[in-house]
């Protein structure tokens, strides 16, 4: 335990970044990391990079890691690109953890990035739909919101989860996103606005859906015994768990929980030696409001079927049972696929170091943070637990 640490983190502004291509976004995150790092020289201290990019087709560049490491000055050093759909960012961190812990590389720079808005929304929707089974589900035009809507319908039917509960998640995440200077959509919304926005995939409306965003995030992962050389306040990786699920969502016995997330959470808690009650703040994968509610249940913050109530009662605001997505989450901060899991680490890194106070959304005294990152509809899930 505590063998691997994060010693620096950075993030670009998320948003519809007409000013920036894939390479510029990665650079911006790394530059932000460099400017906020305590005592690290990328040129001298980094031994390898891991690049997280989910989709080539959004941007057109094949094998994108090559151009990215050149842009950020890492030419010559080993690099690997990893991809796990929307869980790409945590897959990159897990890979970096392994490279470090295995002894292959001492210090690894992780960059997660996605440029999604260069294509039309219809095209982006198309590309994301193709991450569903192209043989048996894509031919029916089921979109990403559609997949989660199938779960929402079932969750509502089985547990009495209401539209109001779904919308409460959105209201909370916008509340915090408005305070996050790097968030894509910085505005508070009312419950009424959330409930009455245009329908995307029944029962999910516009405010139930995360944004299509451009953005990047970066962290430096190193051996614990080197960590203090780079910063006085490293954050340690205490647990990593991963799970997966059937390709076809229709084949799953349960549509109200992500089996892969339960497997991942259990493994991460076990490795970290903590339970849900120990988590001070959680970054969960709210690609859709229903996904955050299911995450509460899969992570053990609520019993099965009671996630909606937790949201409605405001128990996932700061000061509640557990602070969830107080950076705005995918909903308001944005969801550049490859960046998301790394951005979760970025947020937890800053929260555990007490660096978010000036933004009015610091979880005071946070000691343990959890990152829950879901690819597609649970075919890839990584849960990572970080501690001071």
């Amino acid at each position, binding site marked *: 335990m505590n063998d691997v640490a994060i010693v620096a983190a950075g993030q670009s502004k998320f948003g519809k970044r007409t000013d920036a291509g894939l390479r510029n976004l990665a650079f911006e995150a790394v530059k932000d990391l460099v400017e906020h790092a305590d005592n690290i020289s990328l040129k001298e201290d980094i031994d390898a990079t891991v690049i997280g990019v989910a989709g080539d087709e959004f941007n057109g560049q094949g094998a994108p890691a090559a151009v990215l490491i050149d842009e950020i000055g890492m030419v010559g050093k080993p690099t690997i690109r990893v991809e796990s759909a929307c869980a790409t960012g945590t897959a990159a961190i897990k890979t970096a953890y392994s490279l470090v812990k295995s002894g292959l590389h001492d210090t690894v720079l992780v960059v997660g990035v996605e440029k999604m808005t260069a294509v039309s929304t219809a095209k982006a929707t198309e590309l*994301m739909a193709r991450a569903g089974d192209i043989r048996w589900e894509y031919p029916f035009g089921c979109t990403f919101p559609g997949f989660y809507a199938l779960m929402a319908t079932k969750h509502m039917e089985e547990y009495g989860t209401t539209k109001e509960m779904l919308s409460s998640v959105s209201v909370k995440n916008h509340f915090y996103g408005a305070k996050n200077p790097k968030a894509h959509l910085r505005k508070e919304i009312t419950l009424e606005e959330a409930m009455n926005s245009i329908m995307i*995939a029944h029962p999910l409306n516009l405010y139930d859906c995360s944004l299509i965003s451009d953005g990047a995030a970066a962290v430096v992962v190193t051996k614990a015994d080197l960590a203090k050389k780079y910063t006085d306040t490293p954050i340690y990786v205490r647990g990593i768990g991963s799970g997966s699920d059937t390709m076809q969502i229709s084949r*799953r016995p349960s549509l109200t929980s992500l089996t892969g997330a339960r497997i991942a959470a259990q493994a991460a808690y076990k490795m970290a030696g903590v339970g849900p009650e120990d988590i001070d703040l959680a970054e969960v994968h709210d690609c859709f409001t229903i996904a955050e509610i299911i995450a509460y249940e899969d992570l053990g913050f609520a019993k099965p079927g009671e996630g909606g109530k937790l949201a409605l009662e405001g128990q996932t605001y700061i000061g509640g049972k557990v602070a969830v997505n107080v950076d705005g989450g995918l909903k308001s901060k944005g969801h550049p696929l490859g960046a998301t899991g790394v951005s979760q680490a970025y947020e937890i890194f800053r929260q555990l170091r007490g660096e978010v106070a000036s933004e009015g959304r610091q979880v005071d005294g946070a000691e343990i943070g959890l990152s829950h990152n879901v690819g597609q509809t649970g075919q890839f899930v990584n849960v990572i637990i970080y501690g001071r």
Partner: protein
Amino acid sequence: MKKFGYVSVEHYVPFMQEFAEELEKGNIIATKCKTCGTEYFPPREECGNCYSTDMEKIKIEPEGTLVTYTIIHVPPESHANMAPYIVAVGEFNNGLRTMAHLVGVTSMDDLKVGRKIKIVVQKLENDRIVYKFVPA
């Protein structure tokens, strides 16, 4: 050559061509591993449980249950002019589940999770063929 579904992007293997040909005859085919008995629907030509490729065809019975559904209002590029449409999950043969469009809905009752549905074959334009759910 018949193709399955409203759109497709992948290379069409012989197995899928056979599946589409059976559909044309009105047969909705699942497969069962002769070695370990695992049933696959949608069908597979290979058993991920025991790595056998010795599979037999079994038929999907038309009567089933609506597991869940959604109404797609914002479609992907490939379905640009079709929205809104209902995408649903149905269960057949006591446990085999698949996705399809649900059509012929006339009241909210037709959308009740757990209600009886039928799976039917429908020919489309452009030599395409598909199965659909209809309220039973």
